[in-house]
């Protein structure tokens, strides 16, 4: 069964706490800031919310209630969701399924995280890796960058242009971790991390919070919400890694998950106006753009250089600044993407508005193991 076999689902409220470097601010303050902003955006009271899902990765057990009780202890079901980078993407998916299936009419999907130690299940399996722990995500993507540059016969400046574009977008986003425009020379001349990847081609991981309110038609009518600002969720798709031989598992997983999500939404890749994707490392944007069918194989670098993926281009990719500039606090990132897509599809994105946006797609991979894709549509499309 697909999401759109059930009741229509809408995003009616969005809120964020700015993504930022580590501070002494409690995660409770980060979280309630985002949720209160989402409630205000929707024009709704906390008492109307019937269930909550919270995506987080580094705060430990039972995060939801210590945070959400400060909005009023209403006794609603609260569930914590962890799926690495895609944690709150999965929280949003669960919220959508709750509403679509009729279990609830109003559900909160939130994400919150602080900088801290990460425990990865893969490191606790008892299977010692051959690399001795040297392959962390930056090294993994540096290896993929080498593969891409060789296969596409392009240089490292091509990958650096992704960082230039996304830092420009982030400079227009008051919620972004990095809000400074960067030149190609600045990116290429920055501190090397692994292979050709420089610091500015790697996402900042800090803290922040995000929240969206998911509702049914019945809730919109009953609570008197503004239907013209309700963005419909057309599909919700989640897959996990299979065996791909020597091929990049992130790319293959992205390809299959996106194909499925677009098919479920009933639209084609070329109809997308805005895309927020997992650009934790600059090379990923080029790979995923091609894997999603937004351009032909090996064409992403040329289309990027031609401005096709900039705000105002054929399809705006990461208009928020993406993980590279808006940042990647991990727990909040997935719902933060939904907030940006919603803002774009409402036409409320101000200086970073992609004109005439009707369809948007949000994509995250979680440590390669999972991929979550959502397709959303503007009201009255």
């Amino acid at each position, binding site marked *: 069964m697909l999401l759109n076999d059930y009741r229509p689902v809408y995003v009616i409220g969005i809120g964020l706490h700015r993504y930022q470097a580590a501070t002494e601010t409690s995660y409770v303050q980060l979280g309630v800031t985002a949720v209160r902003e989402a409630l205000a955006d929707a024009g709704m009271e906390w008492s109307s919310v019937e269930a909550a899902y919270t995506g987080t990765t580094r705060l430990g057990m039972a995060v939801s209630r210590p945070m959400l009780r400060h909005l009023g202890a209403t006794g609603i079901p609260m569930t914590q969701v962890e799926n690495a980078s895609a944690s709150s993407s999965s929280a949003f998916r669960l919220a959508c399924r709750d509403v679509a299936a009729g279990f609830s009419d109003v559900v909160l999907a939130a994400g919150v995280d602080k900088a801290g130690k990460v425990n990865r299940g893969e490191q606790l399996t008892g299977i*010692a890796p*051959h*690399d001795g722990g*040297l*392959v962390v995500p930056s*090294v993994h993507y540096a290896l993929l960058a080498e593969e891409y540059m060789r296969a596409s016969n392009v240089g490292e400046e091509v990958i650096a242009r992704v960082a230039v574009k996304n830092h420009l977008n982030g400079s227009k986003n008051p919620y972004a971790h990095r809000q400074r425009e960067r030149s190609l020379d600045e990116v290429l001349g920055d501190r090397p991390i692994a*292979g050709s990847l420089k610091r500015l081609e790697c996402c900042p991981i800090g803290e922040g919070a995000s929240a969206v309110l998911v509702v049914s038609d019945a809730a919109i009518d009953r609570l008197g919400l503004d239907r013209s600002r309700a963005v419909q969720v057309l599909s919700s798709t989640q897959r996990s890694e299979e065996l791909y031989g*020597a091929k990049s598992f992130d790319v293959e997983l992205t390809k299959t998950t996106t194909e499925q999500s677009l098919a479920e939404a009933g639209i084609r890749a070329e109809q997308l106006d805005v895309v927020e994707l997992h650009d934790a490392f600059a090379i990923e944007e080029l790979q995923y753009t091609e894997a999603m069918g937004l351009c032909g194989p090996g064409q992403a670098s040329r289309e990027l250089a031609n401005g096709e993926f900039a705000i105002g281009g054929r399809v705006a990719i990461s208009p928020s600044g993406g993980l590279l500039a808006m940042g990647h606090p991990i727990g909040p990132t997935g719902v933060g993407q939904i907030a940006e897509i919603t803002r774009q599809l409402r036409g409320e994105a101000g200086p970073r508005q992609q004109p005439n946006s009707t369809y948007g797609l949000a994509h995250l991979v979680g440590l390669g193991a999972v991929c979550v894709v959502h397709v959303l549509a503007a009201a009255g499309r």
Partner: protein
Amino acid sequence: MESKTPASETLPIRAVRCLRCTYVASPVQHFGCEQCGAYGDDLEEFVLSGDGTVLEIVNVYRHPDSSLTVPAVIGSIELIEGPVIRVRLTSPDLQPGSRVFAVDEAPDAALGLVFAPALQKAS
């Protein structure tokens, strides 16, 4: 297949072959075959040759684990038996397509495997 290198903490490289579907996995694990789910006696350990070809190679300049020494060189290696593994390399001058082989240079097993250029093996 017999090991070509002396016994050590890291060598010979071992793998498991699934007797149901022939899938080969390395490092060794007996939890179950990732391709078909077979387990127990259906997973057979064997020794890999330690010979392979470089697919990609990069220098690592910074690492979040301060106990690991950088710069370091790491590569994706396609072993002749099929598995693709990521291991340390002794030389940053290797290129995609270079032949390499496993050497007993890791000070302890926790640092993983080390591969060197195949020419070094011939000498």
